[in-house]
């Protein structure tokens, strides 16, 4: 299978209401051509509805969906020419593997010899060469996933949609498939919209992530921006672990209780702000000082041995509980002992006001 021109997707004002419930609230979204974009959100956020609208299975109340230049919002699903991998794979149980993959080719009137060739190519691509004669119920979950993928790309669609395709797999296989899907995307280069509620999956695979909640895009950015510079409390809490403390910003200082903090970026306004602390960015300081590391004094509540590391549960000066990992090779601090936690200035990030949009 060859690399081909991908199509950009452009969504404008896409809205869906069920009675008083707004599932999608005037969504605007641009997926660049060839991009791997993930729609990430909790269940009920509207991410699946958005994907189903791209595929044509859910009719929006209003809005525009463009594939390239064409508005497809009123186009029937079978005319959209997009590949889709379903959550439960939806492989036809009355057909063998080869017939499943050949299905879209058959509908497009591709000749017998070419069909056989392309089916085998697709099977090779998902590393299941020679599986054509198998029955669907003879396949493992991971194999079904690959066949569903092969079926979705065999007709060389320029847009590929995936609806939580890895959610039914066990953790190890899931992590393996994440990397494989990513590599496949790099080879084929089709514009891909991927839905998941698994933040790690989103961070691992995506070029950009659109975090969705309550039918709105809360933030659309590259994974590291989403993680390090969340646009609001929801994104910060949904992705990764985080603790928030209140800090006070004045003209020339940012204070957390008695401690003065050096910030990565200056906030837009003065007054009270929320400081986001990612526990894994905290370190336990020994004697040394460094000008670009903020020092947060804390008290140890307990040290818990966990094999690869020690989990040190501490209380910050304002009483906020934070857990820090320490190397298992050092002597664990005892309960009640004072301790100094270090946070690099670059990681000292104040949440912007509101649920800002990208």
């Amino acid at each position, binding site marked *: 299978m060859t690399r081909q021109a991908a199509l950009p997707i452009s969504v404008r004002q896409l809205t869906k209401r069920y009675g008083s419930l707004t599932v999608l609230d005037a969504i605007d979204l641009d997926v660049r051509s060839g991009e791997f974009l993930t729609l990430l959100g909790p269940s009920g956020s509207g991410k699946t509805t958005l994907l189903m609208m791209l595929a044509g299975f859910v009719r929006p109340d209003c809005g525009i969906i463009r594939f390239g230049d064409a508005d497809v919002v009123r186009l029937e699903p079978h005319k959209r020419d997009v590949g889709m991998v379903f959550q439960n794979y939806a492989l*036809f149980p009355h057909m063998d593997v080869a017939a499943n993959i050949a299905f879209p080719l058959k509908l497009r009137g591709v000749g017998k010899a070419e069909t056989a060739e392309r089916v085998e190519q697709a099977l090779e691509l998902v590393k299941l060469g020679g599986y054509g004669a198998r029955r669907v119920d003879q396949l493992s979950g991971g194999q079904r996933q690959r066949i569903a993928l092969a079926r979705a790309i065999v007709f060389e669609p320029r847009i590929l949609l995936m609806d939580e395709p890895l959610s039914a797999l066990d953790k190890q296989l899931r992590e393996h498939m994440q990397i494989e899907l990513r590599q496949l995307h790099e080879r084929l280069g089709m514009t891909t919209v991927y839905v998941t509620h698994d933040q790690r999956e989103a961070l691992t695979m995506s070029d950009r992530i659109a975090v969705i909640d309550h039918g709105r895009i809360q933030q659309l950015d590259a994974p590291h921006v989403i993680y390090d510079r969340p646009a609001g409390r929801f994104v910060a809490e949904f992705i990764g672990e985080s603790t928030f403390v209140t800090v006070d910003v004045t003209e020339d200082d940012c204070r957390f209780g008695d401690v003065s903090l050096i910030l990565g970026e200056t906030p837009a306004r003065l007054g009270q702000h929320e400081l986001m602390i990612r526990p894994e960015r905290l370190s336990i300081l020994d004697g040394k000082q460094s000008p670009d590391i903020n020092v947060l004094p804390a008290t140890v509540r307990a040290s818990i041995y966990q094999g690869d590391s020690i989990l040190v549960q501490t209380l910050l000066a304002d009483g906020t509980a934070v857990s820090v990992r320490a190397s298992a090779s050092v002597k664990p601090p005892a309960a009640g002992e004072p301790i100094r936690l270090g946070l690099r200035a670059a990681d000292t990030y104040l949440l912007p006001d509101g649920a800002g949009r990208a």
Partner: protein
Amino acid sequence: MTVIAAPNAEGLRRDAAVERLQLFALGGPAVLLVIVTMIVPVGWLFWLSFLNDAGEFSLEHYRRMLVQPSYGRAFSLTFEVSFLTTAICIVLGYPLAYVLSQLPRRAANICMIAVMLPFWTSLLVRTYAWLVLLHRQGVINTWGIKLGLWEAPLPLVHNLNGTLIGMVHIMLPFLILPVYSSMRAIDRDYLKAAANLGASPTRAFWLVFLPLSLPGLLAGSLIVFILCLGFYVTPAVLGGGKVTMVANRIATDIELFFNWGAASSLGVVLFVLTGLILYAASRLVRLDRLLGGGSH
């Protein structure tokens, strides 16, 4: 102290045997009933069919079936009527089951009650009701002529037409139920996937939906066909003596000629033919699914 090789083995084995026996005892009354009311009488009829009028062993009854054309006619008519009934049931029932399967579950359940209603009415009552509706001065003919739809009364009853109308009416639920349940079991994602891969609704139906509903359709058709083979009341009442199926022939043999042997042999042949059809069908459809789909 002596060491026992397998402590408690004997007692545990006995416990298991008792448990099995208790379980079997639950099914006992039903098994007994089947033996007394089914196996014994059928065995007795089987035995009778091989006895001639003098009470000696003979194949006379079976020979007569081959020689006398009226018997052959009864069999071919039985299969013809059963086949036609099944075909009409499929034509009427499959689309209806499809509509029901696409409705929301609550609405479908309400409609299903409507389908089931005939089940709760006596077969005899329904058959005579059709007689009232269909005969020359019946409701349908009177209204049809009054409205000027046709001139002379249509021959709707006392013939094959009436028999088929009555039988289809009785058999339709037996087809709809298994078809409906097999259609309900089809994941809608299959149809979405078909559409996504480029199949128009029509092609998605032929390529995906129909093949997936086929086991239910085969099961339903088989149930209808086999039940039709043994029909008696409907052809007797609505056929007006012109539709002599095997069951009617059996009744004539007993009522008119008091020939239990001849009647029994007809029963045996029908029984064996039905068994053969079931066997052939079981190679096509899994029988457990047939029974599962037919439960209601």
